Each structure stands twice: as structure tokens, then as C-alpha cells.
């Protein structure tokens, strides 16, 4: 079906977008220059010297978490799938209370710069730090790959800039922020970006609600959506078909947040546990508000602009927010929001790079290779080399996976975080009998099971590795459904019915042929969380029970005092 090219300037060079983006780059590089002068020690590099307030860290946490993928992706999901998009946005938020109730304060009180510090607090440093660093790096690399590929694609869609140039630009800027400004610059980049993103999304929602047809009524907005796309658009659809799979996804989202290294690392930037918990309160508020805005934007886009226009530009609906911005505020608002989305990508990859670099330098180099005996200068040198190395790796991964469907990698990052990082972290805080062997087994079990099951799941085994035959199978299935629908029509003539039935037989045969061409995935679920996380806990507990570790049990006592009242933790991020 030929479609008319939509009237849009999306994908062309937009002078306002470039101007806004340049302003952001100049401002953030200015901050980096200022931060560089204050970033001399390891504590300043990894944790901004512990001098960030709870409110600032709340904004920065929100900045780390609100990626361009969630801004554009959730608006897109809502505008193409309606209510199912809303289900996703709820899932992305519910991990935060868990972070607060179980993790934030002990993490702040027991660790120094990374969550491995906490797991290794009373266990043997070398094996734990090796395992935890690998868990961190795997999480960070999957997340980073998804962000980089998304960055190249989005920037190409929004600015018309070639994919490769976009990657070099993102890579170069993020290395500059982290290398020279460390955590202080990264935090302020996050704060600026969070304010811009929240402000931009708020503006877009105000303009949407102010539209004459909506007139500040959500009732009218939903009424219009229902009139245009049927009442099923406001009901749960096919997203959750298998309850166990849905439960499994829920587990990964909920506990994955509490195992993301770049999020956990932020708790060392505040002076104490009190500020750490405050920052989660602010972050949860900002993120929840942001998702409500994003859902409104999705409905606004589909009602005011239309599904066809949105899907013409990008089949996944990723440009829904941008299309709406152009519709309501012209190229001025579009340019501003495009620049904000670009800034968002930059800030998130900078945070990830810093987390990866600290796993390499603080955990692996200092903790394992130098047995904790490296001096400040040496650690900084390694941290900076690791930053450059990771930045280059990120660009290379982006180039390697160009044009691939990498959306599953975000799910994988969450699954690994929930299965490899979270169980070991939680058990080390709450369970006296937890041992080194138990922790190492738990981390590797969670990681290996999560990665293997995702590779064997329909998402990767069929959709990614056999993408061409799978697409044909989906098309053949859709054809059958279409014919069956036509057959059910009440006013069908006998002749038409006969010809449709003949078509149906052919179409069904086609499905059988196409099905034979696709090797079915050995693991039927899309989300492995329930197995990978369950096994990680189980193995961690079983192996710990097999052989006691006296020193770890003895130290649990002093750990307890520190966990609950913070004695001995005050100076942990100041030297």
C-alpha cells in the first residue's frame, strides 16, 4: 500500500536542534573543565568525593535511569500498542522501592566505590571481586551495546547524521566527561539532562492537554483514542499471554534495578546513608512522574497525529514523541526535544562507562591484581586507561551490531543484574552464613543461566538468529488470520466464501512450510528471570551451607553494627 510521505522535518538537519545540542555540549564541557580541577583522588574520580546531596543524587539517579530508549520507546509503545505500553512503564518503576528498602543504606554503609566492596566486605577479596567485577562488566556491556546501537539509529533518524559519525561523537564526548571530570562531571551531566528531559516532557504534556480537542481532560484523551482505535486500545492486549513469562519479566525488572552497577555506584556520591535513602525517594518520584508524562505523550501522539504517520517514520513507533512535538510546537520544539534526547543518550553512556571503568580498575586491578595495595596515583592511572578502553569498546560494539535488533540486550542486562549481582549482594548483607564459595557460585550461576536461556529463547534463537525465515513465518500466520477474519464476515457471498476457503488451504500450507524453515527455540519463555534468579539464590545458599566460613561469620557482627548505624562508614568515601 503506497503511503503519502508525512509532512515532517524529522530526519533532516534541524538548525534549532543543532544549536540546542551545541549549547548542551558547551555547558557540559565547561562543567567537565571545572570538575577536572576537583578530580585528583580516586574517591573524587569514582564518587565525587561523597559531596553530592540527596536531592542532587536523586536527579542524577533519575538521569541515569531515564534513557532515551525509555523516553522514546515507551511513548512509542503506548502509541502503537495502547494499554500494553502502560504495563511496561509500571514495570520499570517498581524496582526503586526495593532498592530503597533492601539495598541503599547497607550499600552506602558497607562499601567504598562499587557494590563488589559490599559483597567482599567479610568474604575473600580476590575471588569475590573477580566474580562481581565480571558480573558488573557483563551487565554494563550489554546495556552499553543497546544504548550505542540505539544512539546511532536515533541520531540518524532525528538529525540525518550518519550512524558512524553519531557513534564517534557520542564516544568522544563521553570519554571526555568521564576521563577528565570523573563522577563529579558525570553527575552534573546527569542532573542537567534530567532537568531538561523532565522539563521538555512536561512542556509537551502541557501542550497536549491544552489542545482544543482535549481541553485538559484525560477522559477526552482516552475517549478520542477509543473512538479512533477501538476500545481494545485501552485494555491489556497480547503483551502478557503466558503468566509465568510475565512473572519472570516482572522479577527481572524489579530486582534488576537493584543490581545495576551504574545505579548502585551512585550511592557512594552522597555523604551518608540518610542522604542515600533520600536520593531514592526523589529518584522514584521523578521517574514515576516521568513515566506518567511519557504515557500521556504516547496517547497524545496517537490521538493528535495518528498511528500511520508515526509508524511510517519508524515501525517501532520510536518517533512518536518527536512527531507530537513537531505537531504541537513546530520545528522549534522538535529541535529542542531532539537535542534533549541526544543529551540523554550521552549522559547514560557516560554513567555506564564510569561504572565499567571502576569494575576494571577498583575491583579487578586494585582488588585482585594488586591485592588492594595500589597507591592512589596508580589507581587513577588505571581507571583513566580503563575509561578510554571502555569508550573505544563501546564505539566498536556499536559498529559491530549496526542494523541488528539489540532491544533484547536491555532485557539481558536487567536479567543478569537481577540474577548475578542482586542475589549475592542481598545475601551478603542479610545472611551470616553466606560464604565466599557460595557468593562466587551464585554470581556465575545467575550470569550463565540468564545469558544461556536468553540465547535459547524465541527472542534471540528465532527473531534474531533466524530473522529472515521468522519474518516470513509471521507474515504467513498473519495472512491466515486475515483470511479467517474475512470468512467470518456475515455478508460473505457463497462464491467469495469458496474462493476464500481455497485461499485459506494454500495459506495454511504456506504456514507449515515456513514453520519447517524456522528451528523452534529450545527454551519457550522470553524472560529467564524466574529460573536464573531462583537458581542463583538456591546455589548461593546450598554451597554456603556445605562448608562454613568462620572468618566471614565472625565479621558479620561488626558488619551488622556498620550496616545499621553506620559506625565506621562515615569516612568511607573520604580519604
Amino acid at each position, binding site marked *: 500500500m503506497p503511503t503519502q510521505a508525512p509532512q515532517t522535518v524529522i530526519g533532516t538537519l534541524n538548525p534549532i536542534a543543532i544549536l540546542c545540542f551545541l549549547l548542551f555540549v558547551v555547558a557540559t564541557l565547561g562543567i567537565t573543565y571545572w570538575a577536572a580541577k576537583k578530580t585528583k583522588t580516586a574517591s573524587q574520580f569514582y564518587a565525587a568525593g561523597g559531596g553530592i546531596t540527596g536531592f542532587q543524587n536523586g536527579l542524577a539517579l533519575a538521569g541515569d535511569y531515564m534513557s532515551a530508549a525509555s523516553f522514546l520507546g515507551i511513548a512509542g509503545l503506548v502509541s502503537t500498542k495502547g494499554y500494553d505500553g502502560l504495563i511496561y512503564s509500571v514495570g520499570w518503576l517498581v524496582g526503586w522501592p526495593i532498592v530503597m528498602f533492601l539495598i541503599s543504606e547497607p550499600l552506602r554503609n558497607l562499601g567504598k566505590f562499587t557494590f563488589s566492596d559490599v559483597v567482599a566486605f567479610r568474604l575473600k577479596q580476590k575471588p569475590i571481586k573477580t566474580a562481581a567485577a565480571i558480573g558488573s562488566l557483563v551487565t554494563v556491556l550489554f546495556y552499553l551495546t543497546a544504548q550505542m546501537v540505539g544512539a546511532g539509529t536515533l541520531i540518524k533518524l532525528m538529525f540525518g547524521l550518519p550512524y558512524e559519525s553519531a557513534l564517534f561523537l557520542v564516544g568522544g564526548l563521553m570519554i571526555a566527561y568521564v576521563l577528565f571530570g570523573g563522577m563529579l562531571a558525570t553527575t552534573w551531566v546527569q542532573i542537567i539532562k534530567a532537568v531538561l528531559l523532565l522539563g521538555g516532557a512536561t512542556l509537551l504534556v502541557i501542550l497536549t492537554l491544552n489542545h482544543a480537542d482535549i481541553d485538559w481532560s484525560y477522559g477526552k484523551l482516552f*475517549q478520542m483514542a477509543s473512538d479512533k482505535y477501538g476500545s481494545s486500545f485501552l485494555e491489556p492486549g497480547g503483551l502478557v499471554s503466558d503468566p509465568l513469562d510475565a512473572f519472570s519479566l516482572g522479577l527481572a525488572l*524489579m530486582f534488576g534495578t537493584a543490581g545495576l552497577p551504574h545505579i548502585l555506584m551512585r550511592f557512594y556520591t552522597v555523604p551518608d546513608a540518610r542522604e542515600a535513602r533520600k536520593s531514592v525517594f526523589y529518584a522514584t518520584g521523578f521517574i514515576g512522574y516521568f513515566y506518567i508524562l511519557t504515557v500521556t505523550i504516547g496517547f497524545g501522539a496517537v490521538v493528535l497525529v495518528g498511528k500511520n504517520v508515526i509508524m511510517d517514520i519508524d515501525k517501532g513507533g520510536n518517533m512518536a514523541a518527536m512527531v507530537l512535538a513537531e505537531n504541537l510546537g513546530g520545528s522549534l520544539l522538535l529541535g529542542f526535544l531532539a537535542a534533549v534526547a541526544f543529551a540523554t543518550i550521552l549522559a547514560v553512556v557516560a554513567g555506564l562507562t564510569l561504572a565499567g571503568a571502576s569494575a576494571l580498575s577498583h575491583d579487578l586491578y586494585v582488588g585482585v591484581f594488586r591485592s588492594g595495595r595500589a597507591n592512589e596515583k596508580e589507581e587513577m592511572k588505571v581507571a583513566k586507561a580503563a575509561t578510554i578502553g571502555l569508550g573505544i569498546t563501546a564505539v566498536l560494539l556499536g559498529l559491530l551490531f549496526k542494523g541488528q535488533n539489540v532491544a533484547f540486550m536491555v532485557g539481558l542486562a536487567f536479567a543478569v543484574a537481577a540474577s548475578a549481582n542482586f542475589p549475592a549482594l542481598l545475601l551478603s548483607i542479610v545472611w551470616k552464613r553466606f560464604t565466599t564459595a557460595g557468593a562466587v557460585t551464585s554470581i556465575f550461576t545467575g550470569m550463565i543461566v540468564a545469558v544461556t536461556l536468553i540465547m535459547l529463547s524465541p527472542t534471540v534463537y528465532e527473531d534474531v538468529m533466524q530473522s529472515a525465515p521468522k519474518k516470513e513465518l509471521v507474515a504467513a500466520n498473519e495472512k491466515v488470520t486475515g483470511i479467517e477474519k474475512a470468512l467470518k464476515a456475515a455478508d460473505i457471498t457463497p462464491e467469495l466464501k469458496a474462493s476464500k476457503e481455497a485461499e485459506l488451504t494454500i495459506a495454511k500450507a504456506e504456514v507449515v512450510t515456513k514453520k519447517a524453515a524456522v528451528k523452534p527455540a529450545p527454551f519457550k519463555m522470553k524472560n529467564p528471570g524466574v529460573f536464573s534468579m531462583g537458581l542463583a539464590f538456591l546455589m548461593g545458599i546450598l554451597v554456603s551451607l556445605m562448608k562454613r566460613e568462620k572468618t566471614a561469620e565472625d565479621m558479620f557482627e561488626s558488619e551488622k553494627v556498620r550496616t545499621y548505624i553506620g559506625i565506621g562508614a562515615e569516612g568511607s568515601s573520604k580519604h
Partner: protein
Amino acid sequence: MNDKTPHAILEDPEFKELARQKNKVSLILTITELVLYFGFIGLIAYNKPFLARKIAEGSATTIGIPIAVGVIILSWILTGIYIFWANSVYDEKVKRIKKRFGG
């Protein structure tokens, strides 16, 4: 404070009570959040028609919409409850214990 302090604190009844209370509050709030979210997922999995009901006669808005937004807002309120308790009760007790042990 010296090396013996942690042990003295551990044996302290007020500290024991503090740790117990903290665990209880964390556990109750965690379970509430789990019930809230997995209750929502359960409704989607097992009772779609309920979520598809309209909030009022003649309205297009389904019950599912305020419920989903409600889960987001309640999650945030739970973090608020924790903060309120921690700032007003927990921190005060920590301060008292630290003072007694000269921390």
C-alpha cells in the same frame, strides 16, 4: 570508641531492638511492594476483563488505567513512608545509641 565497641553495641538491647525493627519495616514494605506489583501482573494474566471495564457509564477510560497509574503513585508513597519512619524514628535511635557509645 575502640575495637571492642562493635561487640558492646551488638549486645546492647537498644541496638538489638533497632535492628529488629529496621528489618521488620523493610520486610513489610518490600512485601507490600511485591504484592502491589505482582497483584497488578496477576490481574493482567488472569483477569483481563476486569481491567477492561469502564470506570463509568459512557466513559471510554478503563479501570486498568487508574490502576496502573495507582501502582506507580503507591510505589512512590511507600518510599515516602519509609523515609518518614527512618527520619523520625530510626535516625533518632541511631543518634542515641551512638551518643551512649561515644561514637
